[in-house]
């Protein structure tokens, strides 16, 4: 009898939890729908000017005419540049972090330079990069790399240096050499640091690619946004921004899934 009473309370509690979850999701969906509906209605009534603010139905139309604007090609180019920049950033970042971890001397020498480079807004290097690398995809990838690399190096090096001292001492009692400490303790102990830095990196690489495309202005979503703005085709700008946020979300989720696979 008593047991049944408890389980009933438990059921009520669980139901409450579930209702709460559904309520949150419903409100979130309603906000999106309400926002789109309001935007559409206000534009239709002429209260806001759809020429400068665009309009959901026009965005959908632009979206449907994918081929007309070569939208897919541009999306593909942006994705490609981001993945290359992101991959290079992660690879070089880990490599440099390992070198700096290995050599105390080098890491002390590099420290002030890393601090300065880290606080420098890398976009300021844009014109220099374009002159040196040429106004093309190369410059855009270098831009993405410039933005993400230093942060990766700093974060992973920091993780490496903060590896549990007790584990290192334990390895030392077995007379482990530096390579063994690196491969058997330091790297496996920092898998989560690595995944976290990838999560930050994917966002930073996109910032690099889009700002690179702004400057180079040849192809990609960044180019479409700048172009759309210049010719007052706000439908194109809005569509590009929405696609960009979808691309960013998918890439971020990709890293999250990768993290779950690696960490079992």
């Amino acid at each position, binding site marked *: 009898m008593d047991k049944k009473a408890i389980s009933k309370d438990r059921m009520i509690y669980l139901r409450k939890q579930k209702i709460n979850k559904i309520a949150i999701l419903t409100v979130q969906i309603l906000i999106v729908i309400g926002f789109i509906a309001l935007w559409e209605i206000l534009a239709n009534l002429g209260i806001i000017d759809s020429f400068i603010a665009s309009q959901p139905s026009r965005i959908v139309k632009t979206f449907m005419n994918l081929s007309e604007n070569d939208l897919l090609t541009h999306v593909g180019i942006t994705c490609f540049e981001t993945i290359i920049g992101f991959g290079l950033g992660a690879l070089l970042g880990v490599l440099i972090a390992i070198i700096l971890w290995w050599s105390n001397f080098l890491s002390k020498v590099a420290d002030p330079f890393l601090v300065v480079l880290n606080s420098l807004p890398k976009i300021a290097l844009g014109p220099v990069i374009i002159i040196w690398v040429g106004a093309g995809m190369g410059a855009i990838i270098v831009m993405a790399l410039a933005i993400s690399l230093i942060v990766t190096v700093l974060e992973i090096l920091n993780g490496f240096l903060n590896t*549990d001292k007790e584990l290192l001492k334990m390895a030392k009692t077995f*007379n482990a050499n530096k390579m063994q400490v690196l491969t058997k303790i330091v790297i496996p102990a920092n898998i989560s640091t690595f995944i976290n830095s990838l999560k930050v990196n994917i966002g930073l690489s996109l910032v690099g690619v889009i700002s690179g495309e702004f400057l180079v202005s040849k192809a990609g979503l960044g180019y479409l946004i700048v172009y759309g703005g210049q010719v007052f085709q706000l439908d194109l700008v809005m569509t590009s921004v929405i696609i960009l946020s979808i691309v960013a979300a998918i890439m971020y989720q990709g890293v999250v899934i990768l993290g779950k696979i690696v960490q079992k």
Partner: protein
Amino acid sequence: MEDILTIQKVTKTYQAKNGELEAIRDVSFSVKKGEFISIIGPSGCGKSTLLSIIAGLEEKTAGDIWIEEEPIQGISEKIGYMLQKDSLLEWRTIYDNVLFGLEIRGKKNKKSKAYVDTLLKKYHLYEFKDKLPSQLSGGMRQRVALIRTLAVKPKILLLDEAFSALDYQTRLMVTKDVYDILKNENMTTLMVTHDISEAISMADKVVVLSNRPTTVKKIYDIDFEMEKRDPLNCRKSHKFSQYFDCLWKELDVHG
């Protein structure tokens, strides 16, 4: 029985800002095969430093350490060292954790694996060999750490406050487990601890160290005249409290 470990006039001086600091001065004692030695001393004396020197993790300023009549320098394969924390690698299974030392020393072969299997079976950990450390209790983790150290077949085992991270109950049980394993393997053991009763309950001899600069103040022989010694039931012996009083006075806590 002959001495397996001889420590002769070991001295350690640190270079400090205001001159030299003498931490350990002329520490000498010897240990017979299979003996369990506890080392106690006032807090802040160099007892852990002494152990680190024997383990080769720290350099000594002067003196000699001999194992089986051979002087040792630096980190020796003859010494196994167990720390306060179990330091198991969370991403490895119990089995791979136990193999860690062998892997580092490049001795992961069929023979050593078979030895690890025997150890795991003998000490009731074999059925957990595919589990991760996080799935084991604190006491079991400490036992795994012990087996990881024993797997490399050291001549001498050093325990540095190896149980002080455990809660009191687990600690009593683990001391018994560890004691049984070590006596079973006839392992020569040096244990540093701040806990006088832990020191008495396991030891054949207790070495009392003085304040800095650390010297050997006195060495006590511990004998409960029991058929089968056990760190738990020897606590009930009237001799236990006598030893405790003696050692407490030696430590000179209020002085």
